[in-house]
Protein backbone atom coordinates (compact mmCIF):
# COMPACT_ATOMS: atom_id res chain seq x y z
CA UNK A 1 0.00 0.00 0.00
CA UNK A 2 1.42 3.34 -1.04
CA UNK A 3 0.96 5.68 1.90
CA UNK A 4 0.86 9.41 1.41
CA UNK A 5 3.40 11.78 2.95
CA UNK A 6 0.87 12.88 5.55
CA UNK A 7 0.11 9.27 6.51
CA UNK A 8 3.82 8.43 6.90
CA UNK A 9 4.36 11.49 9.07
CA UNK A 10 1.31 10.75 11.22
CA UNK A 11 2.56 7.19 11.71
CA UNK A 12 5.94 8.56 12.78
CA UNK A 13 4.39 11.00 15.26
CA UNK A 14 2.18 8.26 16.70
CA UNK A 15 5.14 5.89 17.10
CA UNK A 16 7.25 8.53 18.79
CA UNK A 17 4.52 9.76 21.13
CA UNK A 18 5.80 9.29 24.66
CA UNK A 19 9.17 8.00 23.40
CA UNK A 20 10.97 11.26 22.62
CA UNK A 21 12.76 11.10 25.97
CA UNK A 22 14.47 7.81 25.08
CA UNK A 23 15.70 9.02 21.69
CA UNK A 24 16.79 12.46 22.90
CA UNK A 25 18.49 10.95 25.95
CA UNK A 26 20.36 8.48 23.74
CA UNK A 27 21.37 11.28 21.35
CA UNK A 28 22.71 13.38 24.22
CA UNK A 29 24.66 10.43 25.64
CA UNK A 30 26.05 9.79 22.16
CA UNK A 31 27.15 13.44 21.92
CA UNK A 32 29.05 13.07 25.19
CA UNK A 33 30.66 9.78 24.04
CA UNK A 34 31.76 11.33 20.73
CA UNK A 35 33.06 14.43 22.55
CA UNK A 36 35.15 12.27 24.91
CA UNK A 37 36.36 10.19 21.95
CA UNK A 38 37.37 13.37 20.05
CA UNK A 39 39.25 14.72 23.09
CA UNK A 40 41.10 11.40 23.49
CA UNK A 41 41.91 11.35 19.78
CA UNK A 42 43.15 14.93 19.93
CA UNK A 43 45.33 14.17 22.96
CA UNK A 44 46.82 11.16 21.21
CA UNK A 45 47.58 13.22 18.08
CA UNK A 46 49.19 15.96 20.17
CA UNK A 47 51.19 13.38 22.15
CA UNK A 48 52.46 11.62 19.01
CA UNK A 49 53.41 14.97 17.44
CA UNK A 50 55.34 16.10 20.53
CA UNK A 51 57.13 12.79 20.91
CA UNK A 52 58.39 13.31 17.34
CA UNK A 53 58.41 9.63 16.52
CA UNK A 54 55.78 9.82 13.83
CA UNK A 55 56.76 12.98 11.97
CA UNK A 56 57.63 11.16 8.78
CA UNK A 57 54.23 9.49 8.57
CA UNK A 58 52.05 12.30 9.92
CA UNK A 59 49.76 12.31 6.88
CA UNK A 60 49.30 8.57 7.16
CA UNK A 61 48.57 8.86 10.87
CA UNK A 62 46.07 11.65 10.25
CA UNK A 63 44.33 9.41 7.74
CA UNK A 64 44.22 6.55 10.24
CA UNK A 65 42.77 8.84 12.95
CA UNK A 66 40.22 10.16 10.51
CA UNK A 67 39.13 6.66 9.44
CA UNK A 68 38.92 5.64 13.11
CA UNK A 69 36.80 8.68 13.95
CA UNK A 70 34.59 8.18 10.89
CA UNK A 71 34.08 4.48 11.74
CA UNK A 72 33.07 5.14 15.35
CA UNK A 73 30.69 7.97 14.42
CA UNK A 74 29.13 5.87 11.63
CA UNK A 75 28.59 2.89 13.93
CA UNK A 76 27.01 5.07 16.62
CA UNK A 77 24.82 6.62 13.91
CA UNK A 78 23.54 3.13 13.16
CA UNK A 79 22.93 2.76 16.91
CA UNK A 80 20.63 5.78 16.89
CA UNK A 81 18.81 4.38 13.86
CA UNK A 82 18.42 1.08 15.73
CA UNK A 83 16.90 2.89 18.73
CA UNK A 84 14.36 4.58 16.43
CA UNK A 85 13.73 1.27 14.63
CA UNK A 86 13.01 -0.48 17.93
CA UNK A 87 10.64 2.30 19.02
CA UNK A 88 8.74 2.13 15.74
CA UNK A 89 8.60 -1.67 15.58
CA UNK A 90 8.45 -2.78 19.22
CA UNK A 91 7.24 0.41 20.88
CA UNK A 92 10.24 0.49 23.19
CA UNK A 93 14.02 0.71 23.06
CA UNK A 94 16.82 0.53 25.55
CA UNK A 95 20.17 2.22 25.88
CA UNK A 96 22.04 -0.91 24.76
CA UNK A 97 20.63 -0.48 21.24
CA UNK A 98 23.04 2.43 20.82
CA UNK A 99 25.87 -0.14 20.61
CA UNK A 100 23.95 -2.43 18.25
CA UNK A 101 26.32 -1.92 15.29
CA UNK A 102 29.37 -2.81 17.39
CA UNK A 103 28.01 -6.24 18.34
CA UNK A 104 26.21 -7.10 15.09
CA UNK A 105 28.95 -7.53 12.46
CA UNK A 106 30.23 -3.93 12.36
CA UNK A 107 32.11 -4.55 9.11
CA UNK A 108 28.78 -4.86 7.24
CA UNK A 109 27.83 -1.33 8.21
CA UNK A 110 31.29 0.09 7.63
CA UNK A 111 31.43 -1.64 4.25
CA UNK A 112 28.14 -0.07 3.18
CA UNK A 113 29.25 3.39 4.34
CA UNK A 114 32.62 3.01 2.59
CA UNK A 115 30.91 1.98 -0.65
CA UNK A 116 28.53 4.95 -0.36
CA UNK A 117 31.53 7.27 0.05
CA UNK A 118 33.13 5.66 -3.01
CA UNK A 119 29.93 6.07 -5.04
CA UNK A 120 29.76 9.75 -4.05
CA UNK A 121 33.39 10.21 -5.04
CA UNK A 122 32.72 8.64 -8.44
CA UNK A 123 29.72 10.94 -8.85
CA UNK A 124 32.16 13.85 -8.68
CA UNK A 125 33.76 12.88 -11.99
CA UNK A 126 31.51 15.06 -14.24
CA UNK A 127 31.92 18.07 -11.93
CA UNK A 128 35.67 17.49 -11.75
CA UNK A 129 35.84 17.33 -15.56
CA UNK A 130 33.93 20.64 -15.83
CA UNK A 131 36.30 22.16 -13.28
CA UNK A 132 39.39 21.00 -15.25
CA UNK A 133 37.93 22.37 -18.50
CA UNK A 134 37.33 25.69 -16.70
CA UNK A 135 40.93 25.76 -15.49
CA UNK A 136 42.24 25.10 -19.01
CA UNK A 137 39.95 27.72 -20.56
CA UNK A 138 40.83 30.45 -18.06
CA UNK A 139 39.18 33.88 -18.11
CA UNK A 140 35.67 34.67 -16.85
CA UNK A 141 34.12 31.65 -18.58
CA UNK A 142 36.66 29.37 -16.92
CA UNK A 143 35.99 30.79 -13.47
CA UNK A 144 32.26 30.36 -14.07
CA UNK A 145 32.78 26.72 -15.02
CA UNK A 146 34.98 26.14 -11.96
CA UNK A 147 32.36 27.54 -9.60
CA UNK A 148 29.60 25.80 -11.55
CA UNK A 149 31.21 22.43 -10.90
CA UNK A 150 30.39 22.69 -7.17
CA UNK A 151 26.57 22.50 -7.52
CA UNK A 152 27.00 19.89 -10.28
CA UNK A 153 28.98 17.76 -7.80
CA UNK A 154 26.37 18.16 -5.05
CA UNK A 155 23.44 17.32 -7.31
CA UNK A 156 25.25 14.32 -8.83
CA UNK A 157 26.23 13.02 -5.39
CA UNK A 158 22.67 13.34 -4.15
CA UNK A 159 21.02 11.62 -7.10
CA UNK A 160 23.59 8.86 -7.49
CA UNK A 161 23.54 7.92 -3.79
CA UNK A 162 19.74 8.29 -3.59
CA UNK A 163 19.04 4.72 -4.66
CA UNK A 164 21.27 3.34 -1.89
CA UNK A 165 19.93 5.59 0.83
CA UNK A 166 17.86 2.82 2.45
CA UNK A 167 20.80 0.39 2.68
CA UNK A 168 21.56 1.04 6.41
CA UNK A 169 17.89 0.47 7.27
CA UNK A 170 17.89 -2.76 5.25
CA UNK A 171 20.91 -3.94 7.26
CA UNK A 172 19.20 -3.14 10.56
CA UNK A 173 16.00 -4.85 9.43
CA UNK A 174 17.83 -7.92 8.09
CA UNK A 175 20.78 -8.87 10.28
CA UNK A 176 21.54 -11.77 7.90
CA UNK A 177 22.10 -9.51 4.87
CA UNK A 178 25.54 -8.70 3.54
CA UNK A 179 26.86 -5.47 2.06
CA UNK A 180 25.94 -6.09 -1.57
CA UNK A 181 22.56 -7.58 -0.68
CA UNK A 182 21.60 -4.49 1.29
CA UNK A 183 22.67 -2.17 -1.54
CA UNK A 184 20.79 -4.28 -4.08
CA UNK A 185 17.73 -4.38 -1.86
CA UNK A 186 17.81 -0.60 -1.36
CA UNK A 187 18.09 -0.05 -5.11
CA UNK A 188 15.12 -2.34 -5.68
CA UNK A 189 13.01 -0.60 -3.04
CA UNK A 190 13.79 2.87 -4.39
CA UNK A 191 12.98 1.94 -7.98
CA UNK A 192 10.17 4.21 -9.18
CA UNK A 193 10.00 5.96 -5.82
CA UNK A 194 12.99 8.24 -5.91
CA UNK A 195 10.94 11.35 -6.62
CA UNK A 196 8.49 10.40 -3.87
CA UNK A 197 11.40 10.10 -1.45
CA UNK A 198 12.89 13.44 -2.56
CA UNK A 199 9.54 15.18 -2.04
CA UNK A 200 9.23 13.54 1.39
CA UNK A 201 12.67 14.83 2.37
CA UNK A 202 11.99 18.30 0.97
CA UNK A 203 8.75 18.49 2.96
CA UNK A 204 10.88 18.69 6.12
CA UNK A 205 12.68 21.87 5.07
CA UNK A 206 10.12 24.14 6.76
CA UNK A 207 10.29 22.47 10.17
CA UNK A 208 14.07 22.11 9.95
CA UNK A 209 14.41 25.87 9.37
CA UNK A 210 12.17 26.37 12.38
CA UNK A 211 14.46 24.02 14.31
CA UNK A 212 17.51 26.13 13.39
CA UNK A 213 15.60 29.23 14.50
CA UNK A 214 15.40 27.72 17.99
CA UNK A 215 19.23 27.59 18.10
CA UNK A 216 19.12 23.88 17.29
CA UNK A 217 17.10 22.88 20.37
CA UNK A 218 14.08 21.96 18.27
CA UNK A 219 16.25 19.67 16.14
CA UNK A 220 16.46 17.27 19.09
CA UNK A 221 12.79 16.46 18.50
CA UNK A 222 12.84 16.88 14.73
CA UNK A 223 15.70 14.47 14.04
CA UNK A 224 13.84 11.39 15.43
CA UNK A 225 10.68 12.56 13.67
CA UNK A 226 12.54 12.77 10.35
CA UNK A 227 14.30 9.42 10.80
CA UNK A 228 11.10 7.72 11.89
CA UNK A 229 9.27 9.03 8.81
CA UNK A 230 12.05 7.68 6.57
CA UNK A 231 11.79 4.35 8.41
CA UNK A 232 8.05 4.21 7.74
CA UNK A 233 8.76 5.05 4.09
CA UNK A 234 11.10 2.04 4.02
CA UNK A 235 8.51 -0.19 5.71
CA UNK A 236 5.89 1.00 3.23
CA UNK A 237 8.15 0.12 0.30
CA UNK A 238 9.00 -3.21 1.87
CA UNK A 239 5.33 -4.00 2.38
CA UNK A 240 4.58 -3.30 -1.27
CA UNK A 241 7.45 -5.02 -3.00
CA UNK A 242 9.25 -6.97 -0.34
CA UNK A 243 13.02 -6.94 -0.51
CA UNK A 244 14.59 -9.61 -2.68
CA UNK A 245 15.57 -12.68 -0.78
CA UNK A 246 19.30 -12.96 -0.20
CA UNK A 247 21.14 -15.11 -2.70
CA UNK A 248 21.14 -18.69 -1.43
CA UNK A 249 24.46 -19.76 -0.08
CA UNK A 250 25.52 -22.96 -1.84
CA UNK A 251 25.77 -25.82 0.55
CA UNK A 252 29.25 -27.10 0.30
CA UNK A 253 30.54 -30.08 2.06
CA UNK A 254 33.95 -29.09 3.30
CA UNK A 255 35.27 -32.64 3.26
CA UNK A 256 34.10 -33.61 -0.23
Amino acid sequence: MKRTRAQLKTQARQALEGNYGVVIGTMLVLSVIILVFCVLLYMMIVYTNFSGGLESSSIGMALIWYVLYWSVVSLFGIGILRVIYQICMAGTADFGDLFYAFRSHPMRFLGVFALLVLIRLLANIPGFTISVIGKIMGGNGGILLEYGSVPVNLVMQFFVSLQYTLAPLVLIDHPDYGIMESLRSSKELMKGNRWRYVVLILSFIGVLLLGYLTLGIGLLWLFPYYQCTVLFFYLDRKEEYGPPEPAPVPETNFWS
Partner: protein
Amino acid sequence: MDFIEVNDSITPQSPNNMATASLVMGIIACVTCCCLGGFLFGGLGIIYAILSHTERELRGQALAGIILSVIAMLLSLMGLIFIFAVQGGGS
Protein backbone atom coordinates in the same frame (compact mmCIF):
# COMPACT_ATOMS: atom_id res chain seq x y z
CA MET B 1 -36.12 8.05 39.63
CA ASP B 2 -34.48 10.04 36.86
CA PHE B 3 -31.24 8.91 35.40
CA ILE B 4 -28.77 11.23 33.85
CA GLU B 5 -28.28 10.35 30.22
CA VAL B 6 -24.69 9.58 29.40
CA ASN B 7 -23.55 10.50 25.94
CA ASP B 8 -21.31 7.66 24.81
CA SER B 9 -19.96 9.63 21.87
CA ILE B 10 -18.06 11.94 24.19
CA THR B 11 -14.94 10.15 25.37
CA PRO B 12 -12.35 11.83 27.55
CA GLN B 13 -9.20 12.68 25.64
CA SER B 14 -5.97 11.25 26.96
CA PRO B 15 -3.51 13.95 27.99
CA ASN B 16 -1.15 14.99 25.22
CA ASN B 17 2.09 16.30 26.70
CA MET B 18 3.29 17.77 23.42
CA ALA B 19 0.14 19.86 23.03
CA THR B 20 0.51 21.13 26.59
CA ALA B 21 4.19 21.90 25.98
CA SER B 22 3.22 23.80 22.84
CA LEU B 23 0.76 25.95 24.78
CA VAL B 24 3.33 26.62 27.53
CA MET B 25 5.99 27.55 24.93
CA GLY B 26 3.50 29.84 23.21
CA ILE B 27 2.81 31.67 26.47
CA ILE B 28 6.54 31.97 27.30
CA ALA B 29 7.17 33.19 23.73
CA CYS B 30 4.55 35.93 24.14
CA VAL B 31 6.06 37.01 27.46
CA THR B 32 9.62 37.09 26.12
CA CYS B 33 8.92 38.40 22.61
CA CYS B 34 10.32 41.81 23.55
CA CYS B 35 13.78 40.29 24.08
CA LEU B 36 13.67 38.13 20.92
CA GLY B 37 12.62 35.05 22.91
CA GLY B 38 9.70 34.86 20.51
CA PHE B 39 11.87 33.12 17.92
CA LEU B 40 13.29 30.55 20.32
CA PHE B 41 10.18 29.67 22.32
CA GLY B 42 7.79 30.40 19.44
CA GLY B 43 9.72 28.01 17.21
CA LEU B 44 9.61 25.34 19.90
CA GLY B 45 5.88 25.97 20.39
CA ILE B 46 5.16 25.40 16.70
CA ILE B 47 7.39 22.30 16.59
CA TYR B 48 5.66 20.78 19.63
CA ALA B 49 2.26 21.56 18.15
CA ILE B 50 3.20 19.79 14.90
CA LEU B 51 4.53 16.78 16.80
CA SER B 52 1.39 16.60 18.95
CA HIS B 53 -0.76 16.13 15.84
CA THR B 54 -1.23 12.36 16.18
CA GLU B 55 -4.99 12.28 15.79
CA ARG B 56 -7.36 13.35 13.08
CA GLU B 57 -7.72 16.86 14.46
CA LEU B 58 -5.32 19.20 16.17
CA ARG B 59 -5.84 19.58 19.92
CA GLY B 60 -7.18 22.88 21.21
CA GLN B 61 -4.06 23.35 23.32
CA ALA B 62 -1.82 22.80 20.30
CA LEU B 63 -3.86 25.22 18.20
CA ALA B 64 -3.62 27.85 20.93
CA GLY B 65 0.11 27.15 21.15
CA ILE B 66 0.55 27.70 17.41
CA ILE B 67 -1.44 30.94 17.44
CA LEU B 68 0.48 32.33 20.44
CA SER B 69 3.83 31.24 18.95
CA VAL B 70 3.12 32.84 15.58
CA ILE B 71 2.02 36.09 17.26
CA ALA B 72 5.17 36.08 19.42
CA MET B 73 7.41 35.44 16.41
CA LEU B 74 5.76 38.25 14.46
CA LEU B 75 6.18 40.61 17.42
CA SER B 76 9.85 39.60 17.74
CA LEU B 77 10.35 40.18 14.02
CA MET B 78 8.76 43.59 14.27
CA GLY B 79 10.98 44.39 17.26
CA LEU B 80 14.04 43.31 15.28
CA ILE B 81 13.04 45.46 12.30
CA PHE B 82 12.41 48.40 14.67
CA ILE B 83 15.88 48.00 16.26
CA PHE B 84 17.57 47.91 12.82
CA ALA B 85 15.52 50.90 11.65
CA VAL B 86 16.49 52.94 14.74
CA GLN B 87 20.16 51.97 14.34
CA GLY B 88 20.06 52.80 10.62
CA GLY B 89 18.43 56.18 11.28
CA GLY B 90 20.93 57.09 14.03
CA SER B 91 24.06 56.41 11.97
